[in-house]
């Protein structure tokens, strides 16, 4: 069997004899100094901290730089010209660029495990399963963070048709956010108090079933690592010019809906909430899925024209292949929203649960309110498309985010301060019994923005070309 050439190349670059000697020497000195002045528990803690620094902080940097290094070095086109398939290229880069980091991480994990297993009191306090599970979790979280950093760097690369650059620090931060976001959600007790006794770890309830702490957390991390790897694979396919059908992001969004609903299952079954609550979380996830997909996707007019041309020619497979991911997310959003509206219409008046979700008062939810919210998302979509079509100097998406922040967080308080709460439906989805006032202003905004978009579209579309034949 031949070693993955991308991994082999990275090994040549990363694992020189000098570096292989330096890492254990430096780490050995650190652990030795701690062991001289502290207990086995202290060595174990320092090993975990060192693992965080090396694998998480340094590793996400290395993963985020994997593509940027190729682009800056002028070697990325050569790699794209090779017939290495997307998956070997993806995992070769993921593990290859972080090979040295994992070398250090392996030493830290070994020290962590040794400190526990060679010091009986530690194992008897925490339990062998907990110690091993934590070690596996640490490694999986590292893979997850590296995968996110590399996948985001590919995403941002795919966004640009020319002047291709990868913002390495942004990708590294995303990788760190993924690691520590996941940690704070699943392992908050562990990271705050170090390893607590096994009995202190709470079980998880998911769709009414009770799962042991480590079973559920490890399964969750493995699932998210799987999604990160799938993202990496699909993005690499896209970058390597494979003709792929976009379904992964939609799949991930649905996964998040199901996963989240599973955690809220017990509350959803209780009598204090209405049936509509089953779709509130999926709606929020769909909104997140749509905006994320939109801001991360390439949005140049050439891709749109190719897509629409394929649709016009009724070439359904190419049409599906060229369909923007955000468009599918937008469709899913409206589908979930329509379901929610249908449930709400079947009820008498607004629901009065008194509950809140993400700061929203759920007792104010009505069919009009949801419809208005969907129209505001539609307005945002068309507005953001218009910004992209007009080619706002520099970064239209960044400009769009700033505009949206102003629309949603600056204008409403200003109107409220001026005593004009009745005017709020103009700028945000606002609960009101007046159907026309709830959706009229936003519908007008949608209409005007469509006109603007159409004009920009015409201006940016080249006229039909003159055919010139080159002949020998």
């Amino acid at each position, binding site marked *: 069997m031949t070693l993955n050439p991308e991994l082999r190349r990275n090994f040549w670059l990363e694992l020189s004899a000098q570096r292989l000697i330096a890492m254990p020497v430096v780490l050995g000195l650190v652990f030795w100094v701690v062991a001289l002045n502290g207990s086995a528990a202290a060595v174990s803690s320092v090993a975990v901290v060192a693992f965080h620094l090396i694998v998480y902080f340094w590793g996400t940097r290395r993963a985020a730089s994997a593509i940027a290094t190729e682009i800056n070095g002028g070697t990325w086109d050569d790699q794209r*010209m090779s017939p290495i398939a997307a998956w070997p290229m993806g995992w070769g880069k993921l593990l290859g660029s972080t090979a040295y980091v994992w070398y250090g991480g392996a030493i830290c994990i070994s020290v962590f495990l040794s400190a526990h297993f060679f010091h009986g009191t530690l194992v008897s306090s925490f339990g062998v399963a907990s110690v091993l599970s934590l070690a596996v979790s640490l490694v999986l979280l590292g893979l997850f963070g590296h995968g996110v950093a590399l996948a985001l760097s590919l995403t941002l690369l795919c966004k640009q048709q020319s002047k291709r650059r990868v913002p390495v620090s942004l990708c590294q931060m995303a990788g760190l956010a993924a690691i520590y976001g996941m940690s704070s959600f699943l392992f908050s007790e562990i990271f705050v108090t170090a390893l607590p006794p096994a009995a202190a770890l709470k079980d998880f309830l998911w769709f009414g079933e009770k799962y042991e702490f480590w079973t559920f957390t490890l399964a969750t991390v493995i699932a998210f690592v799987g999604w990160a790897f799938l993202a990496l694979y699909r993005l690499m396919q896209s970058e390597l010019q494979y003709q792929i059908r976009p379904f992964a992001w939609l799949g991930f969004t649905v996964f998040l809906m199901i996963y989240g609903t599973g955690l809220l299952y017990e509350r959803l079954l209780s009598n204090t909430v209405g049936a509509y609550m089953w779709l509130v979380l999926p709606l929020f996830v769909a909104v997140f899925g749509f905006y994320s997909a939109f801001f991360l996707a390439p949005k140049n*007019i*050439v891709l749109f024209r190719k897509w629409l*041309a394929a649709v016009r020619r009724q070439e359904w497979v190419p049409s599906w292949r060229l369909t923007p991911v955000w468009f599918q997310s937008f469709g899913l959003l409206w589908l979930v929203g329509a379901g929610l509206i249908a449930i709400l219409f079947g009820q008498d008046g607004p629901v009065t649960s008194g509950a809140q979700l993400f700061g929203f008062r759920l007792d104010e939810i009505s069919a009009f309110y949801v419809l208005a919210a969907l129209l505001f998302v539609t307005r945002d979509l068309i507005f953001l498309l218009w910004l992209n079509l007009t080619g706002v100097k520099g970064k239209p998406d960044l400009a769009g985010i700033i505009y949206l922040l102003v629309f949603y967080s600056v204008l409403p308080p200003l109107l409220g301060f001026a005593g004009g709460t009745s005017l709020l439906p103009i700028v945000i989805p606002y609960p009101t019994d007046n159907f026309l006032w709830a959706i009229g202003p936003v519908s007008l905004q949608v209409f005007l923005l469509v006109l603007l978009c159409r004009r920009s579209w015409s201006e940016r579309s080249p006229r039909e070309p003159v055919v010139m034949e*080159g002949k020998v």
Partner: protein
Amino acid sequence: MTSLVEMRDLVYEYPGFRALHNLCATIQKGTITALVGPNGAGKTTFLRCLAALEAPYSGTINLDGLNIHSDPRLSHTQMGYLSDFFGLYDDLTVEQCLSYRAYAQELVADQASDAIAWAAESVNLTDRLGQKAGELSRGLRQRLAIGQAIIHKPKLLLLDEPASGLDPEARDDLATLLTQLRDGGMTIVVSSHILAELEAYSSHMLIIDKGHIVDHTVVGDASPVSDSAALTVQLMEPHAEFEKILSNVADNARVIDTTAQFSLKGGPQAQRDLLKKLIEAGVPVIFFGPERVNLQDTYIERMREGRET
């Protein structure tokens, strides 16, 4: 001669700007095509589309019958590409650089060793296999980059400005190398601004301006596999029988006063027969030989014609 590349109605767009306009071209096997044009004409975009690195807005490119944009990965096994801003892994040795590319091209151990030896020999780097790429001079780096691009013996080699930054000796080496590769059966497309250098080895010239093909013409008789030769005959004084004899055997004969330019099929034997016929008819031939088209003059002339039309 059979065609290797068939390009049909190729359109490439950047947002709000069409870079290539419905280009159609055929590139014959065993030729070296000089891709020329002013800055911003679309040469690099053309090459990147041809290398299946960019997906066009519309149109098709077939490489030996394979639609390269339907299956870019497979087409990459049959082509090599050297970007104008190529890079090397400076911390790897020449051997490691070549080895990586050989394995990336899915060559197995023995094949890879042979390919590394062949590529190193082709680019004259056999004695530097242990040297790090970062320690090589500009000319040697260029050679290594070409060695990497040809390690899998591609049918089509695409080079974007390969001579930029090279000293005269290195350019001469490059010309020799490209001619050798062409003689070995490779088809080559070279983009460059240095027309005098292209003249040394190009058999065809493809001129692009503002995303249009202005001309695609034979510029020399550099092709060893060609059955057809571009010839020039010059007379001491005009002769009545001259044009008549030529029109019987040659294609596209252009006769102006005492000079004729034409294509003649049939190889050396046909050339010998024609010369014999002219002498026997009493035509006062003072020159009979391959047509040497001056690339610079042709380029300027075609560009002017293109812009006027």
